[in-house]
């Protein structure tokens, strides 16, 4: 006997399906029964693992998993309908043997499943939760990351993340009902929080402290996937969501080049631009075009435009720095932040020389908040080095080294430190 189908399930299939199944089961059981939904999903994976390893992966693994979850849900509903209360909005439909099967059939249909994920996304962004809790919850529930995996993605301690997720689940469970997508007003009120959480999720992958490039790429991919789900809903597909999707794709396009052949961190200026992902660039461009409607200019629009300006330059020296500076000027009025001010100063240095860049960095209002951010010192070091003061530059790179968050950053700053020593005393230009 041989394995019938040798179809390889796609990467992270279980993770993705975990999110879909939990979202749909929670819709059926009610948000207070989230743990029950999670148990059924776990059970479905156990079955899949046992059966597939002997008989091979079925033609349509997603449908297999969803059908298994559906059957278990029906069992639970029949067995426990007197002992438990389920989704209040479905009420009596789940109580009668006549209606339970057709209702379940409908709830597990392709269209409702899509909405379930969106509903869960909005539910996770409950206003009583802090942003970092919202992000952790989304990653846990919708992306199938275990507490351990969330902790390692965020480079946090297991106990801290466990507490954060447990508390967030409690808030979610106490909210009685999942978010109601049919209320257009409520939906557009919560939309910015959801966009922000997705943005933070993406950023954690792109700029986060995790040294492992696979983790980073995974988080970015998840953020893009969830944003795409939002774009499929008429009320979620706002210009700001398109801009968010654009900025994610345009940044993610550069991910393959962030590490050089030796596995070292490579700055935007030195990246091998031929390794940028052209498909993601095209996708980003398409989203950016779609975002250019309506009167609202969000931070996502501006960030996407900055990312786009970088991707269209074939070489660093072809970059339209003037354009980028004026985009940063806009961005800083929408969302004033020292990190954005720092990036603006770097762009000014590219355009008008290192002295101007240093001047701008020193003028950042609350640059004290940057003192834990290694790239603040690295920027100072870089500009001092370019100004011919390798000694001063070295001190800054040493400070960057001291606040480096992972071995990759450490290696990067060490190399810059070596560059300072090589160019040491001889060239003392002004």
């Amino acid at each position, binding site marked *: *006997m*041989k*394995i019938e189908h*040798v179809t*390889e*399930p796609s990467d*992270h*299939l*279980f*993770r993705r*399906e*975990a999110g879909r199944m939990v979202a749909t089961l929670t819709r059926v059981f009610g948000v207070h029964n989230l743990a029950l939904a999670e148990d059924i999903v*776990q059970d479905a*994976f*156990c079955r*899949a*693992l*046992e*059966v*597939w*390893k*002997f*008989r*091979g*992966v079925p033609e349509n693994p997603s449908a297999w998993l969803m059908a298994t979850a559906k059957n278990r849900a029906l069992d639970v509903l029949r067995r426990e309908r007197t002992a438990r209360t389920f989704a209040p909005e479905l009420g009596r439909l789940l109580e009668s043997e006549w209606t339970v099967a057709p209702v379940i059939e409908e709830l597990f249909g392709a269209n409702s499943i899509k909405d379930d994920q969106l509903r869960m996304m909005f539910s996770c962004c409950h206003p009583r939760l802090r942003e970092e809790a919202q992000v952790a919850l989304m990653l846990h529930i919708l992306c*199938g*990351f*275990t507490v*351990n*995996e969330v902790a390692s993605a965020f480079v946090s301690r297991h106990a801290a993340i466990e507490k954060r997720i447990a508390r967030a689940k409690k808030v979610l469970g106490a909210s009685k009902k999942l978010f109601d997508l049919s209320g257009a007003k409520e939906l557009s009120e919560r939309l910015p929080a959801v966009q922000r959480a997705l943005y933070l999720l993406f950023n954690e992958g792109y700029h986060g402290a995790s040294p492992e490039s696979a983790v980073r790429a995974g988080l970015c991919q998840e953020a893009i996937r969830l944003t795409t789900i939002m774009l499929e809903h008429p009320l979620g597909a706002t210009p700001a969501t398109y801009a968010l999707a654009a900025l994610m794709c345009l940044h993610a396009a550069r991910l393959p080049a962030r590490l050089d052949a030796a596995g070292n961190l490579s700055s935007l200026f030195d990246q091998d631009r031929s390794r940028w992902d052209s498909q993601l660039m095209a996708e980003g461009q398409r989203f950016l075009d779609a975002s250019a409607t309506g009167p609202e200019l969000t931070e996502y629009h501006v960030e996407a435009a900055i990312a786009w300006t970088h991707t269209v330059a074939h070489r660093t020296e072809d970059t339209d720095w003037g354009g980028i500076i004026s985009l940063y000027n806009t961005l800083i009025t929408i969302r004033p932040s020292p990190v954005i001010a720092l990036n603006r100063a770097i762009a000014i240095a590219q355009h008008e020389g290192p002295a101007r860049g240093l001047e701008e960095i020193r003028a950042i209002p609350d640059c004290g908040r940057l003192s834990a951010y290694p790239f603040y010192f690295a920027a100072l070091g870089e500009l001092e080095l370019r100004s011919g003061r390798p000694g001063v530059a070295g001190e800054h790179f040493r400070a960057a080294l001291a606040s480096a968050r992972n071995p990759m950053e450490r290696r990067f700053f060490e190399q810059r430190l070596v560059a300072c020593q090589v160019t040491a005393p001889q060239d003392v230009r002004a």
Partner: protein
Amino acid sequence: MSEFVYLYRGGDSGRSPEVMQQTMQKWVTWLKDLGQKGHIKDQGQPLEPAGKLVKGRSKAVTDGPFAEAKDVVGGYTLIEARDLDQAVELSKGCPIFETDGAVEVRPVMKMNM
């Protein structure tokens, strides 16, 4: 060539969907590889973890599981190998060891010795 049965006992890959998928893929790869080398007589079947136990003269029926979770047989495969040593050697590639499980290798009794 002689026949052997692999009985898979225990093995828990935890709650991570990602890890479970990887475990599943390793099994598929391992069994496929054994098959291509001509060692598989019957790929076998997974077994439900719980069932009934019928026991004794009185044929008393009780609910299973019948052993500690780590000892429950989760499935079997019928293997062809030169001898017990080779069957044991081949079993060492089984992904079950990564999840703290065990493979019991049992020769099938021959009819005509």
